[in-house]
């Protein structure tokens, strides 16, 4: 060792000090670079080549498998819709104390009015309603109703402004007042019939100092009209919300302040400012309560408050039959609990299916492994035959076999085993799911079992017998332990497949034989509660990984063999 170091240092390191350092340090290559470094450099090309070979598949898997799954899992905690649709309301609600037992004060209702007004223009309020309806039944209709009537509230102000001066009726007057001079010039020069884009709205410089709320509302209106609706802003009249904001601004501002505003409409502003004091006002809290008295319900507000954050554990709580209560998470009422039962049923039935597969598959695999090659091949074809038949066809066939007037029942009646009015309920329940899924997943048990058994020589059995063991002892003490890796592999395969199985339980499971995956599918495709579906899926995934981990700890994953 030291000889080698001496040789390298003699070549590369001129001073004895360096030599000492190197003697303690890493092993060096002939040119003095650390051996590890030059080794990794030498291997880099090989690594890159290997990476290039797997890259297409890696990218494919990443794009079509990992990314969608990650995205779906993210949806289980993502909750931006509430704070994005009701930004002002959720801001103010943060300070509201649900424990007080009274609904929030006027400012919150005013914010709600603005939020819902904008939301209904963009047709977003129904989506939010559906979202919150998952948490509290009835919210959906509450939002739909409120969205329809919120326009009426604002029109109280619009009517009064328009009655005060015809100036406020015209959209172009508003444009001149609120828009910058440059933008107004651009609009004048824009031909709506040409292919040119409509000039993007620009607020007048400084107008937001005089009319902050109006500026915000008008800017939103302009942006929405131009971008979402793609309408000509010059031909439109502002939202009623803009009038309501104008009322807010004018009521607050001193009338004199508009003197500094050098623009057409400044006079009308001043006039309106002095008039607003006599305007009829809207009490938003009352107005909303008039639309639906549920707005006085603390529970509604508590729900909105609870789901204000951008990320929520609400879906996960829901997925395990819990909800956000006043004192943190709590169990849902008994009659709303469904998922824990479903998870439990999925687990138990998957275990039953796995055990059935072991019991049915083990003897077949044994035969396969010990028959002469020709007979074994024939049997193997029989085992594989189901693989070549559509899953749907097989499941439907079971429907024919198992139904009330089906082949099995008819045969049993004919044989006199069951009375004709006492036929067995074999389908649309757990029995049906277990029978059909055991049949469908059986090859996944037989194949790994077979490939492991094929590697266990018959000599072991002979040896055991020659040592005095009966057939059973020889099997149980000598053969069976060696086939356990096959049972392990088959069980993991069957269990994991069945825990996520969807189509067969859907068709033959009825209501009592469906799995959690059927519920996930329902939320993904029917109720469109993707967040909850994602949360259920995430729990299922976690359960599988946990079981896998437990299996590794108990049996050892090295003991799983799919062959060899």
């Amino acid at each position: 060792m030291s000889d080698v170091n001496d040789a390298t240092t003699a070549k590369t390191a001129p001073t004895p000090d360096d030599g000492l350092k190197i003697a303690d340090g890493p092993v060096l290559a002939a040119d003095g670079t650390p051996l590890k470094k030059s080794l990794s450099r030498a291997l880099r090309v090989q690594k890159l080549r290997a990476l290039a070979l797997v890259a297409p598949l890696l990218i494919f898997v990443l794009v079509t498998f990992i990314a969608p799954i990650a995205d779906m899992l993210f949806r289980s905690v993502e909750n931006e819709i509430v704070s994005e649709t009701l930004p002002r309301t959720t801001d103010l609600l943060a300070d509201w104390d649900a424990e007080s037992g009274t609904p929030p004060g006027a400012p919150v209702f005013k914010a709600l009015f603005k939020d819902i007004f904008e939301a209904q223009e963009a047709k977003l309020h129904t989506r939010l309603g559906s979202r919150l309806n998952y948490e509290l039944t009835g919210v959906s209709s509450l939002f739909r109703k409120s969205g329809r009537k919120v326009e009426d509230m604002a029109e109280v102000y619009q009517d009064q402004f328009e009655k005060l001066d015809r100036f406020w009726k015209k959209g172009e007057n508003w444009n001149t007042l609120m828009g910058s001079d440059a933008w107004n010039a651009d609009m004048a020069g824009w031909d709506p019939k040409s292919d040119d884009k409509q000039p993007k709205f620009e607020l007048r410089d400084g107008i937001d100092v005089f009319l902050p709320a109006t500026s915000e509302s008008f800017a939103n209106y302009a942006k929405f009209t131009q971008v979402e609706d793609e309408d000509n802003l010059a031909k439109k009249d502002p939202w009623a919300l803009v009038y309501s904001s104008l009322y807010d601004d004018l009521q607050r501002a001193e009338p004199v302040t508009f003197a500094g505003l050098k623009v057409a409409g400044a006079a009308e502003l001043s006039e309106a400012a002095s008039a607003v004091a006599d305007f009829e006002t809207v009490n938003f809290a009352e107005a909303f309560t008039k639309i639906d008295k549920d707005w006085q319900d603390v529970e509604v507000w508590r729900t909105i408050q609870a789901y204000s954050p951008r990320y929520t554990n609400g879906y996960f709580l829901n997925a395990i039959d819990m909800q956000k209560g006043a004192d943190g998470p709590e169990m849902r009422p008994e009659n709303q609990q469904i998922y824990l039962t479903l998870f439990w049923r999925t687990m138990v039935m998957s275990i039953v299916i796995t055990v059935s597969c072991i019991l049915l598959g083990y003897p077949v695999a044994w035969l396969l492994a010990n028959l002469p090659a020709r007979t074994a091949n024939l049997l193997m074809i029989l085992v594989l035959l189901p693989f070549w038949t559509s899953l749907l066809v097989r499941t439907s066939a079971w429907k024919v076999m198992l139904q009330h007037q089906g082949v099995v029942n008819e045969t049993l009646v004919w044989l006199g085993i069951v009375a004709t009015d006492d036929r067995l309920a074999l389908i649309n329940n757990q029995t049906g799911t277990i029978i059909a899924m055991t049949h469908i997943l059986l090859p996944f048990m037989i194949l790994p079992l077979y490939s492991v058994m094929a590697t266990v020589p018959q000599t072991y059995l002979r040896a055991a017998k020659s040592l005095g063991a009966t057939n059973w002892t020889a099997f149980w003490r000598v053969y069976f332990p060696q086939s356990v890796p096959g049972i392990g592999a088959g069980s993991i395969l069957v269990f994991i497949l069945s825990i996520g199985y969807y189509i067969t339980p859907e068709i033959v499971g009825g209501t009592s034989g469906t799995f959690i995956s059927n519920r996930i599918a329902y939320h993904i495709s029917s109720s469109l509660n993707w967040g909850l579906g994602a949360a259920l899926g995430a729990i299922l995934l976690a359960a599988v990984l946990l079981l896998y981990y437990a299996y590794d700890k108990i049996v050892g994953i090295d003991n799983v063999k799919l062959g060899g």
Partner: protein
Amino acid sequence: MSKTVTDDGFVVFDRVQKSYDGETLVVKDLNLSIGKGEFLTMLGPSGSGKTTCLMMLAGFETATHGDILLDGKPINNISPHKRGIGMVFQNYALFPHMTIAENLAFPLEVRKMSKSDREAKVARALDMVQMGSFGGRRPAQLSGGQQQRVALSRALVFEPDLVLMDEPLGALDKQLREHMQFEIKHIADNLGITVVYVTHDQTEALTMSDRVAVFEDGRIQQLAPPDQLYEEPQNSFVAQFIGENNTLQGVVKEINKGIALVQLDDGSLIDAKPVNVSKPGERTQVSIRPERVEFDMSRLNEGAHTLKAEVLEFIYMGDIFRTRLRVAGNDNFIVKTRNAPDQVRLQPGQTVEIGWQAEDCRALDA
């Protein structure tokens, strides 16, 4: 080695036949009696039926016809686990999921032996093969030779009277194999057990056995002690199969005073001992061992016939010289001579005269 075999028929094959497919017989009319304490080897090329005989004895194959008797009782209908026969398999068949000690305890356990007895016997059996310290290991952690010893001690641990061994040394390298041959032989002798040993390695058969049964084509071709088998083969197959052998083809001219005069195909005459020939005119294959060929004509009997031979090749092998000659048209006539100080080293191209004692040259079936 020179133990007298008591032929009291501890194991008897009585007119045993075996067919797997109902068309051909793998074992044809086997009659064999194995004495108690005997080490009998079934030797033969693959497919000769020797392993089938062993499996019938062990109970894993049933005889199609005939009886197999163990200690006087027919065992055809006794299942293997009740026969109490120890067996060592070709690939040892040590149970991979058990430790060595567990493997050895297995036969005792199924015999419901108490734990303390079990442990004592296992320890003794492991010590017998010098594997005492390996009890806690698994078979995969042992070398081939060690596994072989464990397999042997497992077959012996329940003290069977009869132990079958199916090519137990086949997977070992040459040196280890030779070592194990003696070890197995010594253990068998010490325990006084009867051993039926199957192999296709003739050296193994010769060094270990009390008697060797040479199998070919489903029949025993010769059943004899090793020395007899080597020196007095009963037919050409045995002569060819056991050891190295030179053969020459010819016709018997006359048989006189136990010596046959054979005219070889090139016309030259030789003396031979008639074994499978009885009258003049029969075709014969004479066989002579390479080490029994003489260059020194003075050592031959008066009037013995000699042959001219051309040296084709001289191979130096250390302890012996191996010379390849052309004799009576046969280019593969081998002569082995001891590397002694006075031994002549022949040169290729040289012509020499060779001869032999008439009794060393056996006139067998053609």
